């Protein structure tokens, strides 16, 4: 058993990779067969991710040396509380999304599930790797899968949005390589723990180069994490793709946020001497600008799926604002908010798709439409999800925002955080209330409207958005334990010397217990 536990760290990578390859080989078989394989692999991933979380819950840092090469010479996978939490979140989200995708969005399922599993492979890899170049490789894996998923199904709008997304991310990848190359050229290592150690003893003449490389790295992560002014690609890309893909992408901006948090707390954290706090002057102001820009976009949107995309921008900004405040309390609040916002944003995308199908020709445009069969059920689910994502009590968004505001008390940025978060929350709930009224209560009375209505909604259609909403409610009911865990994860992040010694000492001993 001990042997198996040691390999638990790499299991969240191997499972989707092998499932993806198997699905590629199975592409000639019947559709239900492929769907079943993908579904089983995704649910198995939830179990594995949960096991991993239990393993690291006591605060141990699991280090997996690929090829048994000791760090910093070989590549290591590292699972601490934060990584395990992100992997579990990815697994839970993907399980809800794939159940929805099976109901038509995967078309004949020939390549959708292959790309979906490869995307999971890339995301889990990005969360678990302890090596900067390896992080680049996993970014590319998740990006190339996301290009395919984004374009899946076709259409002119989707192609145009896809082109912008691909070109922007290719430029981002190039910048990432420049940053990695510069860091390697100066420090001679790519292992994140080793980088941190060497940064602490860096000479005066190299300081400028390293700062430039660090900020370049920050710019790349900010592009992935949709931090203003690099957020403009997001509404187009997320607003035009299919609903399950957009819901899955809710975790993609979090990969950027995770990378920023890692860099912020480890490589440019308290242990790294002269470059400590490199991101401090940038993170909080830019995050608050993101929140404002996202809210303006939210109010100007003409479709519900576009509103959902702007809600992702707003939540990315709120999340990074929490990370920008700094300190264990703010990190913990941010991590709680991260869990909430990922699930809630995915729920909005899926619900927008359900509503769009029920409204026939009116789609999810915010115009008066036909009267909906089972409109009250839909409106009820919309109300719950809208309350959650805009941060109204008693749902998870409120708890998250309240924790962030509380963490900012006494910090220098407090007036700005309070002003921006409270005003944008108010504007957000007003906008969503207006959307809800328009979608459910403003009925187009013209005689043609009735015949254009889509097919009535069934409870099964609503399964995935409801499940995601219920998980959000679970985050409130179990707010105590969840917050305790995120607090423990935040404290572990701030004690980076434990992380560093776990990674580098695995060089002499076996895998750390």
């Amino acid at each position: 058993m001990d042997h198996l536990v040691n390999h638990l760290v790499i299991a969240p990578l191997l499972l989707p990779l092998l499932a993806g390859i198997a699905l590629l080989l199975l592409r000639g078989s019947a559709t239900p067969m492929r769907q079943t394989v993908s579904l089983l692999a995704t649910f198995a991933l939830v179990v594995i991710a949960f096991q991993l979380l239990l393993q690291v819950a006591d605060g141990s840092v699991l280090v997996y040396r690929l090829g048994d090469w000791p760090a910093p010479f070989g590549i290591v996978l590292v699972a601490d509380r934060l990584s395990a939490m992100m992997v579990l979140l990815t697994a839970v989200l993907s399980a809800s999304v794939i159940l929805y995708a099976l109901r038509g969005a995967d078309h004949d399922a020939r390549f959708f599930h292959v790309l979906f599993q490869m995307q999971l492979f890339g995301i889990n890899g990005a969360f678990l790797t302890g090596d900067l170049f390896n992080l680049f490789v996993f970014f590319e894996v998740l990006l190339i899968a996301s290009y395919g998923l984004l374009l899946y199904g076709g259409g002119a709008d989707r192609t145009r949005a896809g082109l912008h997304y691909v070109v922007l991310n290719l430029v981002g990848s190039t910048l990432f390589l420049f940053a990695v190359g510069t860091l390697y050229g100066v420090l001679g290592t790519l292992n994140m723990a080793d980088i941190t150690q060497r940064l602490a003893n860096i000479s005066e003449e190299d300081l400028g180069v390293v700062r430039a490389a660090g900020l370049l790295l920050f710019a790349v992560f900010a592009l992935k994490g949709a931090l203003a002014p690099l957020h403009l690609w997001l509404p187009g890309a997320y607003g035009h793709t299919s609903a399950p893909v957009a819901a899955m992408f809710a975790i993609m901006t979090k990969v950027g946020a995770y990378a920023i948090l890692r860099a912020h707390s480890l490589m440019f954290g308290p242990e790294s001497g002269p470059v400590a706090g490199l991101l401090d002057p940038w993170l909080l102001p830019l995050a608050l600008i993101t929140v404002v820009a996202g809210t303006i976009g939210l109010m100007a949107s003409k479709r519900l799926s576009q509103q959902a995309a702007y809600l992702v921008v707003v939540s990315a900004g709120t999340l990074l604002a929490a990370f920008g405040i700094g300190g264990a309390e703010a990190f913990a609040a941010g991590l709680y908010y991260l869990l909430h916002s990922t699930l809630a944003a995915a729920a909005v995308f899926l619900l927008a798709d359900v509503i769009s199908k029920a409204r026939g020709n009116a789609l999810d445009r915010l115009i008066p439409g036909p009267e909906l069969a089972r409109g009250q059920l839909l409106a009820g689910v919309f109300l719950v999800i809208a309350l959650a994502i805009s941060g109204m009590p008693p749902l998870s968004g409120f708890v998250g925002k309240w924790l962030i505001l509380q963490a900012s008390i006494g910090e220098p940025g407090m007036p700005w955080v309070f002003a921006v978060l409270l005003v944008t929350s108010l504007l957000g709930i007003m906008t969503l209330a207006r959307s809800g009224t328009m979608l459910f209560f403003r009925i187009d009375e013209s005689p043609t409207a009735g015949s254009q209505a889509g097919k009535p909604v069934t409870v099964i259609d609503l399964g995935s958005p409801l499940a995601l909403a219920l998980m959000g409610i679970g985050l409130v009911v179990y707010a105590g334990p969840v917050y305790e865990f995120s607090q423990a994860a935040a404290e572990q992040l701030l004690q980076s010397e434990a992380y560093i010694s776990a990674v580098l000492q695995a060089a002499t001993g076996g895998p750390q217990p």
Partner: protein
Amino acid sequence: MEALIAIVIGVLTASGVYLSLRGRTFPVVLGLTLMSYAVNLFLFVMGRLMIGVPPVIQENASYADPLPQALVLTAIVISFGMTAFVVVLALRARAELGNDHVDGEENH
């Protein structure tokens, strides 16, 4: 030698950035390609410039850093795949949108 390589990387990057800011997909793709050439070269020289030494550590002998060579191989493969993808996507955008502008509209 260092100065020459630095100028080459700088010119490649500058041309790449300029071209990738153009309005048509073809120059954009060329720009991305030039930028990936520049970054590959950049990664390669991060192991310092050496001539005629093996990338193998031997006793009392100078050696070239093998790691950037491995990194640049990975980066070349990835950028090659990505370029192929973006070429196909540009062709599809040309077919579906009716023109080769990145926004899909002529009047920009």
